């Protein structure tokens, strides 16, 4: 079995709303170029994505919705109808061939899934995926088709495996959560900025799932201005405990890179450090619980110059056991892209502190987040306590 596959093609950049839209897949190019220039990727690691079929899209989406996206991409959908499907808005404008572009991103994630589930590769990564806001019959928050939801349903149907979905995007992973809210063979864990102000507004602690799925949705809303230590503490504690509780067969991680201080859409204050640590623990957990089965997708990330390329390159390098992302960035990369960038590109893999002014209520914020972790995990801790006592009395 090979180690890690990188699903990539230039066509993934056809998922493009407009020139000034914040969701900009140029970041895939920037990441790929950075990996090439630091010898982070080999030709044989790169695999081309396939298109998702209509039947695969119907695993999650309504046929009416898919039809509407197809018609919109050909310019045949009336704007009044478009609005009922959540497209033609400022967030998710209509663009030419949007169906094909969106289905290719889904196909990329399914390519990754098949490689891992057929045990051709231990891990696989599709950075063009991670469109976690897409709903059954409605586009939302820059997302048309929800590749992660489709991939999870595909794994359930085709491979009968239990999926742990871990979402570290700064926005709540609402689309995936609601798709599996009443299931007990899919567990969703989302760590995000509180929805009090930030889109989409959901992802509260008390959203724990319903019916037999109760307990299998876990949400950790972090306060605005949360910094590295507090964030990482929440991530590490919750991922480990949720994995021990749920015992997944495979892990899908959504790696939105928008919790960084530089990100223009969110109000968290992380540095690039968390993007080194996030895949490290995911990698460890995948080996510990799932025989290595780990699929990583991208997600949000709106500082495409200073944050996303470094964050996603580090994700791939962790996945491919090639941890050389320290010290200066390749000069040629900085030189090549600096002339296109509206900001000063970083010169090193690390952020050179301080990148932001001191947060005056750091202590209270960390305290509140620690309480959030406790509350969010309380039902899992109770359950683990019961299991432990039960196994003690029965032995």
């Amino acid at each position, binding site marked *: 079995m090979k180690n890690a596959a990188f699903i990539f093609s230039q066509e993934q950049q056809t998922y493009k709303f407009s020139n000034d839209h*914040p969701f900009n897949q140029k970041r895939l190019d920037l990441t790929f170029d950075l990996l090439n220039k630091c010898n982070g990727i080999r030709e044989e690691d790169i695999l081309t994505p396939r298109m998702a079929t209509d039947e695969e899209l119907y695993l999650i989406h309504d046929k009416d919705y898919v039809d509407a996206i197809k018609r919109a991409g050909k310019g045949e959908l009336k704007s009044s109808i478009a609005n009922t499907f959540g497209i033609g*808005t*400022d*967030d998710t404008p209509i663009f030419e061939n949007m169906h094909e572009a969106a289905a290719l991103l889904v196909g990329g994630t399914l390519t990754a899934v098949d490689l891992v589930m057929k045990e051709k590769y231990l891990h696989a990564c599709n950075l063009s995926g991670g469109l976690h*806001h897409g709903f059954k019959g409605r586009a*939302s*928050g*820059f997302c048309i088709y929800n590749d992660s939801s489709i991939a999870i349903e595909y794994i359930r149907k085709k491979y009968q495996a239990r999926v742990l979905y871990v979402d570290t995007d700064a*926005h709540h992973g*609402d689309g995936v959560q609601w798709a599996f809210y009443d299931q007990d063979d899919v567990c969703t864990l989302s760590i995000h900025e509180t*929805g*009090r*102000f*930030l*889109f*989409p*507004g*959901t992802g509260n602690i008390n959203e724990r799932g319903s019916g037999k799925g109760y307990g299998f949705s876990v949400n950790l809303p972090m306060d*605005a*201005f949360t910094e590295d230590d507090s964030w990482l503490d929440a991530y590490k504690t919750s991922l480990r405990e949720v994995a021990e509780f749920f015992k997944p067969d495979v892990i899908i991680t959504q790696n939105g890179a928008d919790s960084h201080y530089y990100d*223009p*859409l969110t*109000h968290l204050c992380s540095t690039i450090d968390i993007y080194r640590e996030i895949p490290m623990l995911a990698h460890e957990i995948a080996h510990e619980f799932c025989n290595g089965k780990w699929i990583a997708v991208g997600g949000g990330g709106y500082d495409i110059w200073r944050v996303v390329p470094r964050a996603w390159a580090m994700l791939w390098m962790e996945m491919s056991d090639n941890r050389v992302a320290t010290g200066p960035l390749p000069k040629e990369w900085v030189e090549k892209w600096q002339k296109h960038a509206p900001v000063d590109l970083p010169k090193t893999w690390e952020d050179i502190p301080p990148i932001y002014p001191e*947060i*005056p*209520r750091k202590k209270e914020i960390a305290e509140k987040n620690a309480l959030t972790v406790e509350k969010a995990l309380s039902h899992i801790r109770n359950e683990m306590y019961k299991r432990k006592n039960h196994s003690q009395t029965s032995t």
Partner: protein
Amino acid sequence: MVVEQIMKRNVYTIDITTTIQQAIDLMDNNRIRHLPVTNEKNELIGIVSDRDIRDARPSIFDTDKHEEYFLNPVSKIMISDVITAHPLDFVEDVSSIFYEHHIGCLPIEEDNKLVGIITETDLLHTLVQLMGAHQPSSQIEVQVENVAGMLAEIATIIKKRNINITSVLVYPTNGLEHKVLVFRLQTMDPRGVISDIEKDGYKIVWPHLPGMTP
């Protein structure tokens, strides 16, 4: 909004001969806390709450004793002086009845017949909907002068951006000079509309935490 838009029409009822045990089972099985007592004409003659039942129960230190208590008819413990409302009452008015009388549910009567019920939970759910927190959206808060027309001004700016508003609330502030307008907007990227609002001279209160000026 009026009561009939949010009331539950499918009401679990009992009659005066129902035993306390039967009432307990009905509550447990349907996860409810109130049972209206009606007569054969579906007229309301009383109500039993989980608290009334708790009062009628033996102490938890006396388990296994007094099991005969549970065979008493509910008529012995029901409240017959019931506060009710009408389907056309306003939800806002009804909310203050809950608050003033410290009650957890309100049977709804029309033409002296029981036609529905609303509970604290129904009211809270309505409030969540009014605040727009159940649909994907971003929240912004704008401080405006306490004079006529401010809401229209801000709404016009939002309209120019073609953004759908999910909900609007007007919050009082400590002083009389200002009000805070709270909008939930159907967009993941409110930066454009925020800068438009600021350009017109209004103060955006978020992002802001006490003791912080980010």
